[in-house]
């Protein structure tokens, strides 16, 4: 309805104006000197999320393949690993890795490496399920048609099943990437100087909670929003296979 569009415009304008006034009244003078420190730490959160996604993705492929195509034993093992990580709270996984890795390696593990390993494990477990879902979403007739054409099993997987599966996985991949970026805030609990910790540290030093929490929220919101927008572009280009 027309009045509803007008009302939405009014709400938008009021939000922008009110938000602008509220922002201007915050204590920015104390925050400005820390701007570079905060920006660097936001970059560190991004690096952490991307590295975890890459390492986790690399680990997820064999996990998903074992759970989908493996024999009884490997399938059970892969399912066990995936479900164990997925049933554990993310914060717990991070503590787990931080406590346990030193026992395995016999020496100290830096907080950064523990954080990366934990986030990679979390990403691997979810990505394995996403990949498995993607593989299942390709109709079985595609396997049979490819075999009837005389393709070898590896070629069937790489050239017929995988490309179609990848398309269907894209929306779930976006959600996972955003979730992983939000999860990086938890590594502040073991002392990694990520964006969340940097903002807390700055607040302890200069005390400007209003301005700093605005920066904190904006940093995460814009990052997650950007991830969604970028991957959605892929989604529009590659329509899901029916």
């Amino acid at each position: 309805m027309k009045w509803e569009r007008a009302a939405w415009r009014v709400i938008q304008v009021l939000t922008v104006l009110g938000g602008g006034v509220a922002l201007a009244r915050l204590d920015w003078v104390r925050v400005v000197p820390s701007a570079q420190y905060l920006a660097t730490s936001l970059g560190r959160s991004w690096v952490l999320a991307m590295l975890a996604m890459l390492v986790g993705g690399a680990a997820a492929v064999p996990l998903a393949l074992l759970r989908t195509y493996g024999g009884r034993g490997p399938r059970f093992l892969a399912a066990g690993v995936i479900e164990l990580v997925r049933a554990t709270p993310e914060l717990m996984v991070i503590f787990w890795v931080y406590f346990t890795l030193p026992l395995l390696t016999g020496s100290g593990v830096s907080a950064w490496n523990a954080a990366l390993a934990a986030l990679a494990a979390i990403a691997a477990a979810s990505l394995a399920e996403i990949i498995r879902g993607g593989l299942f979403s390709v109709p079985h007739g595609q396997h049979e048609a490819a075999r009837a054409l005389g393709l070898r099993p590896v070629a069937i997987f790489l050239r017929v099943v995988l490309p179609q599966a990848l398309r269907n996985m894209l929306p779930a991949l976006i959600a996972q990437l955003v979730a992983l970026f939000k999860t990086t805030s938890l590594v502040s609990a073991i002392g990694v100087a990520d964006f969340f910790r940097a903002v807390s540290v700055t607040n302890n030093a200069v005390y400007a909670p209003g301005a700093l929490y605005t920066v904190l929220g904006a940093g995460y919101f814009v990052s997650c929003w950007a991830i969604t927008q970028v991957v959605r572009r892929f989604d529009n280009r590659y329509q899901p296979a029916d």
Partner: protein
Amino acid sequence: MDWSVLWQYRAELAEGLGITLAISAAAILGATVLGVGIGCLAASPSYLLQRLTGSYTALLRNLPLLVKLFFLYFVVNLGPFTAAFAALVLHQSAPIADVTASGIRSVAAGQFDAGLALGLTRLRIFWLVILPQTFRVILPPMTTQYVAIVKNSAVVALIGVTDLTFQTQEINVQTFRGFEAATAATLLYALATALVIWTMARLQRGRVR
């Protein structure tokens, strides 16, 4: 490894599990009420309502739970339990609203016209025809959301709520038995999520009303 430490700290672990279960249960109820309410508004044909609910879910979806929790605790100055409850409810209400809205859209199409043809008012159609069917459709995705609440509740340890994760850390600090404590806590969390999944499966079979 020394597993006796778990027996030694059994009272603390039981207390932590109790607090985790209590906060999770409260947050599940709160998030369901708020999320389903907003989902119902989001499914309405009104442009304004769609925009408002869309902004709400977009804002809450793109902020980490930890940011909400610390904001409510340190800036709004809520008590630790209130802040934990409110943060968990706000955080999960957004995906629950999305699940509800898509559930309503999936059943609504012909049902609304059928209800009108029978002479029911719009409100009665929504309440008597569409919502009951929606609940059946959204039970499986809601299970995922409830499990997420139980898992996310671990974060409240960071503002000093003495939940399972907090107790695990305490054991680690006092005895350096972090591995044993984390293993026990992981199993207890798995138990808690299994409880949620089992309850939802029973609901789905219609044995519990």
